[in-house]
């Protein structure tokens, strides 16, 4: 779908992306992680055609120029910070309908699940909404479009827990779309993605693809020990088929290799009570 080769972007001679190479295949759901300044946002901007750069970005079915409208018609984008648009929400929604093929019916459903009523904020200037409302509108517009690549830059940062959960669910339902999600909180998107890419100083330092390691029946043995009995965690592990021992403080079971991120995402919610976690990867227990 997208082949990035030797992508370099410099600001004042300082490389923010430094010879980055990457391919994004249809169906890839990628969590893009990395510390501040690692190059995540710059990579997005290069993909969207916002930046001049060295190296090549080949976009499937798109013209070779830096910015291609046909490619952008297949891409939905939510920026890290909501833009201070002065237009009313209704105008933004109409712009997305007329200019990007967004569907009002779909947008109404998405907005409803995120907990915002489009009609209620229709005439309100976008910039006067709260941070969470702005994010919900941007997500609504993005998910209201029939696209095959979604680029989200910290999309859930301003969302309340309910909306965040609904957002993750809706992304999971978009099985046909590829995703590139930048997040500082891997646990938030872990259950959604099948590939994790870590950037550091403009280079790919980790490209962990579940798909590569996925084999039918490939299971990982896992042991979890918690500080004290905790009923919700015990229930969550039971749903994964784990057996409890030592007074409901020691759990063991197996997880499918493909569900690795999703499992770790679930465990991370109880991070404060976990004393020990081991996942057997390829016969070597990592602790």
């Amino acid at each position, binding site marked *: 779908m997208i082949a990035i080769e030797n992508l370099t972007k410099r600001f004042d001679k300082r490389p923010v992306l430094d010879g980055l190479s990457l391919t994004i295949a249809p169906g890839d759901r990628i969590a893009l992680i990395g510390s501040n300044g690692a190059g995540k946002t710059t990579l997005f*901007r290069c993909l*969207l*055609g*916002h*930046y*001049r750069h060295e190296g090549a970005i080949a976009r499937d079915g798109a013209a070779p120029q830096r*910015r291609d*409208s*046909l*490619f*952008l*018609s*297949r*891409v939905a*984008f939510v*920026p890290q*910070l909501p*833009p*201070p*648009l*002065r*237009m009313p929400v*209704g*105008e933004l*929604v*109409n*712009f*997305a*309908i*007329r*200019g*990007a*093929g967004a*569907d*009002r*019916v*779909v947008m109404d459903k998405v907005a409803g699940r995120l907990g915002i009523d489009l*009609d209620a904020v*229709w005439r309100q200037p976008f910039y006067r909404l709260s941070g969470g409302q702005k994010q919900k509108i*941007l997500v609504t517009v993005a998910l209201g479009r*029939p*696209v095959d690549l979604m*680029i989200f830059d910290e999309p859930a940062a301003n969302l309340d827990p309910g909306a965040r959960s609904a957002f993750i669910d809706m992304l999971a339902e978009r099985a046909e779309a590829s995703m590139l999600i930048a997040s500082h909180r891997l646990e938030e998107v872990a259950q959604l993605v099948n590939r994790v890419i870590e950037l550091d100083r403009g280079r790919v330092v980790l490209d962990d693809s579940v798909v590569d390691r996925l084999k039918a029946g490939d299971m990982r043995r896992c042991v979890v020990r918690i500080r004290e009995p905790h009923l919700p965690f015990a229930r969550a592990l039971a749903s994964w088929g784990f057996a409890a021992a030592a007074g409901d403080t020691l759990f063991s079971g197996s997880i499918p290799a493909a569900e690795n991120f999703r499992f770790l995402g679930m465990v991370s919610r109880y991070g404060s009570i976990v004393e020990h976690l081991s996942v057997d990867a390829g016969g070597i227990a990592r602790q």
Partner: protein
Amino acid sequence: MPASGQNTIVTYPGGGGLALSIRLELQESMRSRWFHFYAAVFFGLMVLLALTGISESRVLGFTGLSRLLVTYIQITMAVLPLFILVTTARSLVGDREAGSLEYMLAFPIGLGAWFWGKFLGRLVLTVAPVAAALLFAALYGLALGHGVPWIHVALYSALVTALAACFLGLGFFLSGMSRSTEIALGISLMVWLTMAALLDLLLLSVLIKTQIHPDLVVAIALANPLQTFRTASMILFDPQLILLGPASYVILDTFGVTGYVVWALVWPTALGLAFALLGYWRFSRGDLV
């Protein structure tokens, strides 16, 4: 409110994108304070001039609606370019700084359609209040029983459009070139001051003081869109250019009345479009956000 059941990908890289961009710019500008203030100033000024009875006064032979229009257009020349430059120079660079450009340009709208849509939308909005004020003056003159010089009203509207196109192009050029709003505003003020400084009186004093070749002075006067606008607005009501003095011989001998009016319409428009093209070229070649 729209309700669509369609689920197709729609792109507007061509004409549709341009119409969408114009529409967006019109809506955006009509909401903004600069436009409200701008429209109030230019329409209010005409109302003020009409109500103060300036059309009844007689100065250098001008009276009636002609007197009203001449006064209005001279004030327009001083204020309109500054207004346009200051508001336009910060448009692209301001959107870029605020982060709006990053979001809006992620939509599948052609870059050319985006840029030229903004340009055309602004052109319509900057001309509209002045044209409305001129129309008001004509109707006011009719109501008072004055003869309405419709051809002059039309030519003034065309001259204002040419001047607006010129400074819009310059504003978009500066906005496309600048990396910060402050720089764009600073340069636009410098440009306006330079052009205002090179108007005929100052130019004459430079000529006398420094003994520059007269042809160069005439060339500067002809190239300065403020000066061409000013002279053309005078020539419409004073075809002998008595107000201008000896310099009028150069204009009348070289161009004639019609030729100069055509020059005053074509040159600023061409200059504005050239600057806008340069601005677009720079904008599209560099980092967009």
